[in-house]
C-alpha cells in the first residue's frame, strides 16, 4: 500500500503535466487503496492484529509504530472504499486543469494525502499519530489550494489551515495531559497512564481532544472551515475531504475517548449528544438555504457528522451508565452511518463535480434540466440523494433506524435529566431527517429537473468515462451497504463490542434475516424491505400494464393557465424553494431582504424591474470568530514592533532568551 501510493506520487512528479501524470497518479492511488481495502478487510474478517515498528525514524520520540486493530481496520476500509473511485474520477476531472494548474503537484499531493490518511488509523504511538495527522492536514491544505488563482480558494484554504492548526495545538495539549503523570508515548502505555489520572485530569484531556478532533470533524461551532474549503477543492478531493477525512475526527475521538481513556463520567456523553444534535439540526438548516451545490453538500456533511456524534455520544453515555450492550448498539449504528455517509457523500460530491464540469457553475439557480443530458450522473445523484435523505430501501435509512433504536433505551434511564435529553435528541434527529429530505429534493430537483435556467445548463454534456465509472462505483457501494446491511452491522457491531469489552460476537449482533435490538425493542429486516420494495414496484408496474389503457403517451406543453410560451424564468429556483422554511426558521437565520422596485415612469402600476436580494446572518463568524480574529490581529500588530529587521536586535533576543532559560533551569534545580 505504502509502495503503491509512493509510486503514484513519484509517477505524478516524474511524468510531467500531461495525461500520463493523471493516469499514473490515479493508478498509484487505486492500487494503494485496493491494498488498503484488502488489508483492512482481512484484519476485520480474521481479527488478526498486525503490528510494525520503525524505531530508527524519529527515535528520540520512540520511533514510528503501527498497529492494525479492528477499529483502525474499519477506518482503513472506509478510506480505501472512497479513495479508489475518487482517484479514478480524478483522471477525467483533472483533465480540465491541464496547462492551468500543476498536475504533478496535484497528483503527488493526492497520493501523499491518501497515504497519510490511511496511516492515521494505524498509528500506535503519539509521534506517529501526530505526524500522519499533520501530513494529512498539510497535504489536504495543498489539495484545497489547487485552483490557487481564485481569491475565494485562497481565503478558504487559509481558514482551513488556521482551524486545523488550532486543532493540532489542542491535540498536542491533550496528549501531553494524557502522559503527564507517567511520561509515555506508546498507546499501550498511555492506556495504563490514563487509568492513573484523576477525574478532573481525564476530563481536561477529553475536552482538549474534543476541540482538536471536533474541529476536524466539523462540529458546530468549529465547522466554519468546512463549507469554505470543501467547495473550493477539486471535486474528487471534496469527496475525499467530506467522505473520508472528517471521519477521522470521529476516529480520533473514539481512539482517545474510549480506547485510551476508557470512557468517562456521563457528562462526556451528554456533551457529545448536545454538540451532535446541535450540529445536525443547524447543519441541515444551513444546507437548506444554500444555492451553491457544493456548499449545500458541505453543510450536509456538518449535519451527518452531527448525527454520527450523537450516536457516539449515546455510546459514551451508556457506557458510563453501565449499559454496555446499549452502548455497543449505539456505537455500531454510528460506525455504520460513518461508512454510509462516506459512500453517499463521496458519490454526491462526485456528482456535483460532474455538474460543475458540465456547466461551469456551482450555482443551482443556473442549472436545471440536466437529467436529460446527463444520463449517468442524474441517476447516480438520485441514488445518493435518496440515500442521504435517509429513505428506504437505501443504506442511509438503515443506519438512521439503528440510531433511533439506539437512543430509545436512554429514555428508560432513571435520571430525569438524561431521559429528557434523550427525548430531545430523538426529536432533533427526527426533525433533521425531515429537513434533510427537503434539502435533497431541492438539491436534486432544482439541479437536474425542469428546463435549463442558463445557456451553460442547456449545453451541458455528460462526464467522461472515468468520472462516470467513479460515480457508478460509489452508487453500487451505497446499494451494497443497504443490501448487505446485516453483515456490515455484524462487523461494526463486533468492532463496537470489542471496544466495550463485550464478547466480540454477542447474540444481539448474530444476525440473519432481521435486526433485533439488544433490548428486544424492535425488529426490522433490511433484505425484506429492499426485496419487497423492488418486487412491489415491478408488480405494480406489471399490473398497471396489464389492466390500464395501452394508448401511447401523448406529449404536450406544460399547462400554463393559457399563456403561450413557457420560459425558465417561470420556474421555481433554489432560493424560492427554500423560502417557506427560511420564514419558519427566521429566528435561526435572521434573514435580511432587500427589494428594489423600479416603476414605469408613466404609471405606478407597471413595474420595469425588480431587484431582490436576500441573505442570512452568518452567526458563528460574526459573534464567535470575528472578535477572536480581531484580537489576534491586534496582538499581531503589537508583535510586529519586535520584528525590526535588524540583526543586532535579533542577536540580543537570542542572548536574553538564553539567560532567561538558564535562570529558569537554575531556579527549578534541574540538572
Amino acid at each position, binding site marked *: 500500500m505504502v509502495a503503491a501510493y509512493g509510486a503514484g506520487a513519484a509517477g505524478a512528479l516524474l511524468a510531467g503535466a500531461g495525461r500520463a501524470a493523471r493516469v499514473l497518479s490515479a493508478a498509484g492511488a487505486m492500487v494503494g487503496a485496493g491494498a488498503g481495502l484488502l488489508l483492512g478487510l482481512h484484519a476485520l474478517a480474521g481479527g488478526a492484529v498486525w503490528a510494525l515498528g520503525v524505531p530508527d525514524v524519529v527515535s528520540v520520540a520512540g520511533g514510528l509504530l503501527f498497529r492494525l486493530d479492528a477499529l483502525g481496520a474499519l477506518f482503513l476500509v472506509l478510506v480505501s472504499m472512497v479513495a479508489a473511485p475518487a482517484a479514478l474520477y480524478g483522471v477525467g476531472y483533472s483533465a480540465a486543469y491541464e496547462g492551468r494548474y500543476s498536475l504533478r503537484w496535484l497528483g503527488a499531493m493526492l497520493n501523499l494525502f491518501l497515504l497519510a490518511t490511511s496511516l492515521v488509523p494505524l498509528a500506535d504511538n503519539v509521534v506517529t499519530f501526530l505526524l500522519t495527522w499533520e501530513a494529512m492536514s498539510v497535504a489536504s491544505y495543498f489539495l484545497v489550494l489547487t485552483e490557487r488563482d481564485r481569491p475565494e480558494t485562497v481565503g478558504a484554504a487559509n481558514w482551513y489551515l488556521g482551524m486545523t492548526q488550532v486543532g493540532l495545538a489542542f491535540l498536542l495539549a491533550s496528549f501531553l495531559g494524557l502522559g503527564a503523570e507517567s511520561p509515555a508515548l506508546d498507546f499501550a502505555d498511555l492506556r495504563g497512564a490514563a487509568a492513573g489520572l484523576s477525574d478532573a485530569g481525564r476530563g481536561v484531556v477529553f475536552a482538549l481532544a474534543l476541540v482538536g478532533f471536533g474541529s476536524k470533524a466539523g462540529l458546530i461551532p468549529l465547522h466554519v472551515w468546512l463549507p469554505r474549503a470543501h467547495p473550493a477543492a477539486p471535486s474528487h478531493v471534496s469527496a475525499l475531504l467530506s467522505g473520508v477525512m472528517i471521519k477521522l475526527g470521529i476516529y480520533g475521538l473514539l481512539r482517545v475517548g474510549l480506547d485510551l481513556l476508557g470512557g468517562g463520567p456521563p457528562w462526556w456523553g451528554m456533551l457529545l449528544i448536545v454538540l451532535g444534535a446541535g450540529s445536525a439540526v443547524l447543519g441541515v438548516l444551513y444546507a437548506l438555504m444554500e444555492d451553491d451545490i457544493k456548499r449545500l453538500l458541505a453543510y450536509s456533511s456538518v449535519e451527518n457528522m452531527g448525527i454520527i456524534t450523537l450516536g457516539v455520544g449515546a455510546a459514551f453515555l451508556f457506557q458510563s451508565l453501565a449499559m454496555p450492550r446499549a452502548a455497543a448498539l449505539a456505537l455500531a449504528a454510528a460506525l455504520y452511518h460513518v461508512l454510509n455517509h462516506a459512500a453517499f457523500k463521496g458519490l454526491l460530491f462526485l456528482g456535483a463535480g460532474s455538474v460543475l464540469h458540465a456547466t461551469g457553475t456551482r450555482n443551482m439557480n443556473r442549472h436545471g434540466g440536466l*437529467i436529460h443530458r446527463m444520463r449517468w450522473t442524474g441517476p447516480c445523484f*438520485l441514488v445518493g440523494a435518496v440515500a442521504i*435523505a*435517509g429513505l*428506504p430501501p437505501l443504506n442511509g435509512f438503515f443506519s438512521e*433506524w439503528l440510531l*433511533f*433504536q439506539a437512543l*430509545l433505551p436512554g429514555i*428508560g434511564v432513571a435520571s430525569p435529566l438524561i431521559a429528557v435529553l434523550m427525548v430531545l435528541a*430523538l426529536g432533533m434527529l*427526527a*426533525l433533521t*431527517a*425531515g*429537513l434533510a*429530505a*427537503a434539502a*435533497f*429534493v*431541492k438539491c*436534486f*430537483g432544482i439541479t*437536474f*429537473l*425542469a*428546463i435549463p435556467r442558463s445557456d451553460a445548463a442547456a449545453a451541458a454534456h455528460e462526464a467522461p468515462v472515468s468520472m462516470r465509472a467513479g460515480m457508478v462505483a460509489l452508487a453500487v457501494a451505497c446499494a451494497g451497504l443497504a443490501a448487505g446491511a446485516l453483515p456490515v452491522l455484524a462487523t461494526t457491531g463486533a468492532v463496537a463490542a470489542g471496544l466495550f469489552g463485550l464478547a466480540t460476537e454477542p447474540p444481539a449482533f448474530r444476525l440473519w434475516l*432481521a435486526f433485533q435490538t439488544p433490548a*428486544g*425493542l*424492535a*425488529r*426490522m*429486516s433490511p433484505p*425484506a*424491505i429492499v426485496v*419487497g*420494495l423492488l418486487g412491489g414496484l415491478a408488480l*405494480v*408496474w406489471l399490473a*398497471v400494464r396489464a*389492466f*390500464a*389503457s395501452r*394508448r401511447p403517451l*401523448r*406529449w*404536450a406543453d*406544460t*399547462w400554463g*393557465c393559457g399563456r403561450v410560451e*413557457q420560459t425558465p424564468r*417561470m*420556474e*421555481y429556483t433554489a432560493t*424560492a*424553494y427554500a423560502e*417557506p*422554511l427560511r420564514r*419558519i426558521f427566521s429566528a435561526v437565520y435572521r434573514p435580511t431582504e432587500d427589494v428594489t422596485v423600479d416603476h414605469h415612469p408613466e404609471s405606478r402600476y407597471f413595474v420595469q424591474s425588480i431587484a431582490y436580494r436576500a441573505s442570512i446572518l452568518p452567526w458563528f463568524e460574526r459573534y464567535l470568530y470575528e472578535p477572536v480574529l480581531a484580537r489576534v490581529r491586534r496582538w499581531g500588530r503589537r508583535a510586529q514592533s519586535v520584528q525590526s529587521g535588524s540583526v543586532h536586535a535579533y542577536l540580543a533576543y537570542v542572548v536574553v532568551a538564553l539567560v532567561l532559560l538558564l535562570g529558569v533551569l537554575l531556579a527549578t534545580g534541574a540538572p
Partner: protein
Amino acid sequence: MSGLGGYALALGQAGLCLALAPGLIGLIRWLKARMQNRRGAPVWQPYLELRKLFAKEVVVSTNTSWLFRLAPYVVFTSALAVTVLLPILAVPLPLDGVGDLLVVVYLLLLGTFFLALAGLDPGSPFGGMGSSREMTVAALAEPTIAMAMFALALGAGSTNLGQIVARALERPAEAVSPGYLLAFTALFIVTLAETGRLPVDNPATHLELTMIHEAMVLEYSGRYLALIEWAAALKLLIFFSLLANLFVPWGVTASPGAGALLLAALIYAAKLAVLAAVVAVFETRVAKLRLFRVPELLSVSFVLALLAITASFLSR
C-alpha cells in the same frame, strides 16, 4: 399466528386496504356534502373515477424526464408496502418483524420525496410551489409522527406496530392514559397535515395559490393520476388505521378464525367511518389556515407529542 396462513392474512389485509381506500374518500365527500346541504356524489364515485382514469390516454409534458413517469409507481408502491405492515384485523402477523413504525414513517416520506421531485419536473411554477410547500409541511410533520408513535412504543416496550396493539389488548387499562390522549391529538393534527385536509390544504380546491398537493400533481393524467389519487387515498386510510388501531385497539383479534376476522373487519370499517365523520364535520366547520400559520399548528402538535413521551416515562 405464523406460517402460510399468516402471510396470506397480511396480504389479504393489504388487499382490503387497497379496496377500502377510495370508498373512504367517497364517504368523507358524501358526508361533507350532506352537512353542507348538498346532495353529493355517491360514496362509490371515487371507484368510478379511478376506472375512468385508468382507461384514459396519458398526456405528458415535453419538459419531463423518466423520473416523472417513475414517480407514480414509487408513490403507489411505498403506500402499498405500508399496508402490509399495518395491524388491521389480527395481531401479531409474521410480517410484523419486517418493519416497525419508523419504517412506516419513512416509507411514506419516500412517496412524498418522489412526488415532490415529480412536481418540479414539468418546470411549471405551480408544481414548484406545491413541491416546496409539501416538503415544508412534511419536514415539520415527520418528527411529530415519529414522536407520537414513540410515546406508544415506550408504553408497549416495542416499536413494532403489531406488538404495540397486542400489548394494549392485553392491558387495556393503560390505553386511556394521559400520554395516549396527548399522542392521539398530536397524530390527529399531523394526519390532517400529511393527507392534505383542511385546515392545512384544501382537497376540493383548484385555486392555484392555496393548494399544496393538487399543485404538485397538476401535470399528471390518465393512469399516472389514477395511481397517485389511489396512493393519496391509501395514505389517508393508513393514518386513519394508525389512529384507530393503535389508540383504540379493541376489535383487532389475537386469535384469528373466520368468524373473528369477519367481526374484526366490521369493527374496523365502523372505526374508519367514525373517523371519516369526524374529519367531515371538522372540514365543514373550520376555514383553511394561511400557509405561514400552518407551522404554528404543527409545532403545537410536536409539543404535544413531546409531552406524550414525557408522560409515558413519568407514569412508569
